[in-house]
């Protein structure tokens, strides 16, 4: 069953000649209980997509120019602020990259956790407290009763991220959006948090949309993957297909430029150049100026994201040669 559908989403910043299209005609679905990975580098539009779903985009300067976002059959872009508030929490929860700036430094984590529960559920203060303790236990925080009285600065980065997850999960969301949830964490802590997310997904049967720039993290947790570049989806596939048969030059370049634990000191492959200026993107394929596979035709028109078989989509006109090198 499809839980979330994003259709032709277009998000712009600013107006007039300097307008920037941060997300351009993006469409995708997330099924119940599925983990969808969204990868891309800075400026790819992945976080703006997430904020649009949450209704958290500051408008202005942002403007949703086109498209619709369907959650359980309703277009949530038409929701009022009140309806959105009811959706956040029990419908969609979100965790962010910086657990320090996402928690309020002047309230204890108990206050913040119980406040979240209070907003969404009519239960007694005692039941709220019990639920808060239960959530902290679930995310692996030792001595949760004592931790309720702690302030965010008293916790380590990994602990704060666990608290954020507890807050997001307190209302049992059907979809959890995790925006770079482990980027600020050390690698041993990252592994613990990813493991926790996958455990909770099984327990609560929730879907997860995980946004990351780390291909390793995606390989580890995602069922399906979307690769974004300069505001557009360039490739979409099941996780195995994506890593084994990357069918867009950008995906391939990303995978090749990661120094793996297995390779040795040869030169790393690089993607030359840098992201295009978002105010003046190239006329055709946005990756064309940096692409080793470019043809004349790539400059003529924006290549559509097309099904290349088996639920694998690529926005490259030379996907066949790429998939079977």
């Amino acid at each position, binding site marked *: 069953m499809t839980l979330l559908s994003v259709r032709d989403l277009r998000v712009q910043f600013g107006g007039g000649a300097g307008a920037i299209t941060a997300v351009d005609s993006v469409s995708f679905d997330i099924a119940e209980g599925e983990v969808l990975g969204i990868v891309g580098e800075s400026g790819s539009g992945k976080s703006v997509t997430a904020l649009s779903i949450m209704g958290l985009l500051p408008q202005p300067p942002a403007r949703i120019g086109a498209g619709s976002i369907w959650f359980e059959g309703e277009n949530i872009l038409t929701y009022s602020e009140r309806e959105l508030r009811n959706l956040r929490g029990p419908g969609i929860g979100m965790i962010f990259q910086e657990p320090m700036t996402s928690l309020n430094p002047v309230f204890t984590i108990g206050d913040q956790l119980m406040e979240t529960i209070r907003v969404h559920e009519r239960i007694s203060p005692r039941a709220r407290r019990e639920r808060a303790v239960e959530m902290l236990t679930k995310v692996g925080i030792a001595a949760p009763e004592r931790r309720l009285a702690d302030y965010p600065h008293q916790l380590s980065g990994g602990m704060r991220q666990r608290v954020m997850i507890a807050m997001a999960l307190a209302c049992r969301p059907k979809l959890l959006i995790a925006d770079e949830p482990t980027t600020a964490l050390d*690698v041993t802590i990252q592994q613990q948090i990813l493991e926790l997310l996958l455990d909770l997904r099984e327990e609560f049967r929730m879907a997860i949309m995980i946004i990351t720039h780390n*291909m390793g993290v995606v*390989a580890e947790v995602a069922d399906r993957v979307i690769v974004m570049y300069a505001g557009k989806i360039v490739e979409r596939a099941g996780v195995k297909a994506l890593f084994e048969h990357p069918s867009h030059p950008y995906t391939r370049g990303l995978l090749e430029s990661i120094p793996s634990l297995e390779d040795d000191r040869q*030169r790393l492959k*690089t993607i030359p150049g840098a992201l295009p200026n978002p105010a003046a993107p190239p006329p055709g394929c946005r990756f064309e100026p940096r692409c080793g596979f470019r043809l004349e035709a790539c400059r003529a028109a924006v290549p559509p994201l097309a099904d290349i078989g088996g639920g694998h989509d690529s926005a490259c006109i030379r996907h066949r040669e790429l998939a079977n090198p």
Partner: protein
Amino acid sequence: MTPLLSAQRLTKHFAVRHGGVFGRVRGLLRAVDDVDFEVAASETLGLVGESGCGKSTVGRMLLRLIEPTAGSIVFEGEDLLALQSEALRAKRRHLQIIFQDPYGALNPRMTVEDIIKEPIEIHGTLDGRSASRRVAELLDRVGLSPAHARRYPHEFSGGQRQRIGIARALALNPRFIVCDEPVSALDVSIQAQIVNLLQDLQDEMGLAYLFIAHDLGVVKHISDRVAVMYLGKIVEIAEKRSLYAEPLHPYTQALIAAVPEPKPRAGRRRSAISGEIPSALNPPRGCRFHTRCPHVMPICRELEPAVAEPKPGHRVACHLYPAAAAAAPTAATA
């Protein structure tokens, strides 16, 4: 071979005070404790570990940007800690540093030319016109255009700023560069460009690097040897291939196992270690890793492990690998 740089028993304890700088000393933060390593000319020593392990403090002490509490740093045969200001400055020409944050490391009010020229002016190695020529040459060398010299840092992307930082570090023809997380803030595709640039520069100029990073993939790629730090101590140091193929210390093993590889696999992976890094204000007794170690033994809680060398050039501080009997007493009293 005599090393280019050798750090012996390098230690940094920060005093933690009550209520500001004039307060009573409340405790000692043992950021770096008794660390030994050597770096040969043209060699890259990788230094890895998680946040708070003391790796950046080590890098900064080598340049005396942070004064060590104890220990010695011998560079080209001279003890840097014994040098007075003039002599230190002369020596420091050959020791440079590249920082993690290419946004914070460049003065936003200075043009790129002024930024790169500053070390040349301070050391007075070249006159005005030759200095400008040198800037153009350096910009070209790091993959920027000499036309960029008049611009300000904000006009550049993260990767380009890191190139400017590298050009500044190269301005005085150093022999040794501390690279403190030089690619951590960059996107993957840009990261590879900078790593390749650092390698090219090393091959051409015979530079030695101390490459500090938390990304084990990048460190493996660029290093000849790798040292692993945990809570202020080097727990393992070895030639790269040996370290990654056969990590001896349980912490190194866990660290390598925790790296998510860009290869989907069937089934779930389980964390090798639980818990978090203890506070450096009050590090655990005995082996500092014992609170998280899957192989913990009674002795680990009591006695700090001495450094053993189970294989030539592969040193490890862990009770699973008893040090040679002769070496043990000195290390135990240390």
